[in-house]
């Protein structure tokens, strides 16, 4: 019996239809079916945050959500954060020269965007606590925190 289903969802403001096995994680649907490869595979078990996207506005690890659970949902990926790398977080990330290997940074930025949405002026402690689900093996944490503070400042002014 086939597990293949067809699901409609909205990705970066565009309605998309995907046909795949019902248990396929959203991560792989985004990456291989919709060719949005900015969202990264890191662990597959919700431990590293490299696959973080916004699901109905909330930072979510896309490796943990099956296709059958995201029907009619609104998804924003790093490609949809801004059309031209103009989001204050992206600009702050460049100003602080945050990325090293860069592989985790889409997930870091999407999680940070979720933080600033709910808390536009986070303290350093709040940043550290909120960002701790996301691993950066290059250890760019200090610069991530600084970039979030910089972006928060810019969004206030």
């Amino acid at each position, binding site marked *: 019996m*086939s597990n*293949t289903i067809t699901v409609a969802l909205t990705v970066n403001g565009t309605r998309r239809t995907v046909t*795949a*096995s019902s*248990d*396929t*994680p959203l991560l*792989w649907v985004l*990456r*291989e*079916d919709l*060719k*949005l*490869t*900015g*969202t*990264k*595979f*890191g*662990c*597959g*078990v919700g*431990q*590293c945050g*490299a696959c973080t996207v916004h699901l109905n506005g909330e930072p979510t690890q896309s490796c943990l959500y099956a296709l059958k659970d995201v029907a009619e949902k609104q998804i924003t*990926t790093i*490609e949809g*954060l*801004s059309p031209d*790398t103009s989001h204050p977080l*992206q600009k702050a*990330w*460049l100003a602080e*020269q*945050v*990325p*090293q*290997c*860069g*592989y*985790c*940074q*889409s997930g870091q*930025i999407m999680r940070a965007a979720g933080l600033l949405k709910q808390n536009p002026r986070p303290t350093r402690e709040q*940043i*550290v*606590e909120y*960002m*701790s*689900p996301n*691993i*950066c*093996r*290059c*250890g*760019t*944490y*200090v*610069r991530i*925190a600084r970039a979030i503070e910089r972006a928060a400042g810019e969004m206030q002014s």
Partner: protein
Amino acid sequence: MKSANTRNASRAPANHNRRRFMVGAAGFTFGVAVGAPALQLLVAGEAAAAIGSIKLNHWVTVFTDGTVAIMSPAAEMGQGSLTSLPVILADEMDADWSKVRIVAAPPNDKIYGNPAFRYLQYTAGSATVTGYFNNLRQFGAQVRYVLLDNAARRWGVPLAEVRSEPGYAVHVETGRRLSYGEIAAFAKVPAQAPEVVVDPVGKAEFRLIGRDLPRVDVAGKVNGTAQYSIDVQVPGMVYGAILREPMEGALPEKIDDSDARAIEGVLQIVPLKYGVGVVAQNPWAAFKGKKALKVIWSRKATGWGFSNDKGYARFAAVAKDQNVKGVAWETKGDTAGGFAKATTVVEGEYRADYAYHAQMEPLNSVAALSADGCEIWCGTQSQTVAVTAVAQALGIAEDKVKFNGMLLGGGFGRRGNRDVEFIVDSVLMAKAAGKPVKVIWTREDDVHNGRFRPLYVNRIRAGIDDKGKIVAWHHRVVSDRVLAFMDPVRYKTANGRDNIAMRGTELPTYDIPHRLAEGLQQDTGIRTAPLRAIGVGQNSFANEVFMDEIAAKLGVDPVRYRLQQLSGTPLAKRARYVIEEVANMADWGRKRQERGLGIAYLDYSGTQLAGVAEVSLSRDGRIRVHDFWCVIDCGVAVQPDNIIAQTQSSIVYGLGLALTERIDIVDGAVKQSNFYDYHVPRMRDIPNMHIKLVQTKNHPTGAGQMATPLVPSAIANALFQLTGVRLRQQPLLPERVLHAMAEAGVSIA
């Protein structure tokens, strides 16, 4: 600074032979085609098509619109050398940096190999800037010479009157100027590159070196456009997953693939020598298929039955038995005679567990075969090693392999092994499938098939004279073999010396007249690889904890004791500075409530570093690092802020190795699976980091991993200051802390 911002041309061709700097430098020619499309073609590796019959320079192409394309031979894995190398060349040619475009060099050892690795095109060992530095300066100077010489001829003036400004040749007396692009339109290029004298590094004035220029790879890393091999999609591509043997040499004897075949989307099962592959329509089906395989493995492999405990028992016995001779790594003076003169002999044993790279991008690659060749997309630390391995796997000539080098989602030593098994995977699968295949390792595959920093037992004896000076030092390092496994080709010429396991036992700055470091590497059957900081990560831990133990035994402050042991060489003077400075920064003499301070010093391939950790201990045995101070002197700082970033990165990496990261081998196989049981540092774990970069006018040395070894030793030494208890094994796990404290009869405050 130079007056009028110009550089004169007086650095004429040299008489003496600089041929050793000239590899790949002969016969340079400038492109005549203009503009972006030509550059695009160059980037795509189609230079010939873009510029007709004109033969290119191997490193630099100057376009008539002023664009300067510079080849960068390094793999970019976050360390920044894709940018740093062209900076060095551009500085000496006096290029306008805003006009420079960096192009990834194709695989070619002869032209693009790293002199530090005997011209292997291999990005590792923090040896990229240091290895290429002289060649790139020389080559940049040659380009500048030819440009200025052409301008002088056009103007009919002596070359000595022509100077450069960034991107221009200038005749100062008449004010005439020609841009490099204008010169490219008429330039005649000598068939043989001229030899040009460059200022020695101690006297050179740089325009670009020492400035913080944005790394070229960073922009794409904040908007999802940066391309790693896992992102590659080619027409008609299918996906692969591989169930690999649990240890090297355990072959699949019996395969039950009935459940795997039943999974929707699974296309094909591919028996391989070292495992079983699954080809599927998408990654998820491939992973499910792999999980459904039932395989019985042959019991012939060396690793069966092995465990960390068995390794420690065996290694410790070897370390202790002075009758078992090792391979000398470093010898100085007469060690036996030195010990005879000592009034006190002290001895210490230090251990380290296996450790895993945990680069964020699980290993993967893409391959597409054609009638007579193969195209690969991969992230590798050696472009040429990858090409050779693929050619050998298919039995085809190397020129039939088209290589597409992608960004690496972390390397840390995992992607430079000679057999590049994670690249050969996709090639074999594409051959079996008859279609392009992207093979993706899951995180669990990446851990289970990991190639680790080896298990170590280090045993050091030191002979001390009546003044407290160390006069003899004997370091025996017992570990799994690394070089023989990760690179049999290099090992063949190494005379049994395992540089990956042994590096860091040499002590060039401590004034110890009689020294012997011996390597006793063992074949346990366990897969190993260089891991960030290689042997230095453990050998320096042994050195610096032992040094602390000696100081404590003699009742001397550990900072002062280290300073007393330093020799008077120029290198040791730099060592003295970093130790004194880090002690100042940390306010070393000030006692803290319920906190301990510990110091570590390190010469890492010429880079001088010292670190201080401030720690506290909780009742459950967990160590918390609150602050970490680090001073680093790696000579000329090509990209200073990037060196700071790499040092931050090295400290965080060292923190994980120090406190939480360990791989357990059980019956030859890996016990851990993913980030839930292999714990790497997260944002909440990191200390306040205080880093000082000392810029000295010495030949640049490494920066990409140097601080990592400081962290475990500084923490262990800080724990001693806090509790009086010594930990001699990495990682300093809570249960080990509690055990050591119970043994010493010390309780946590």
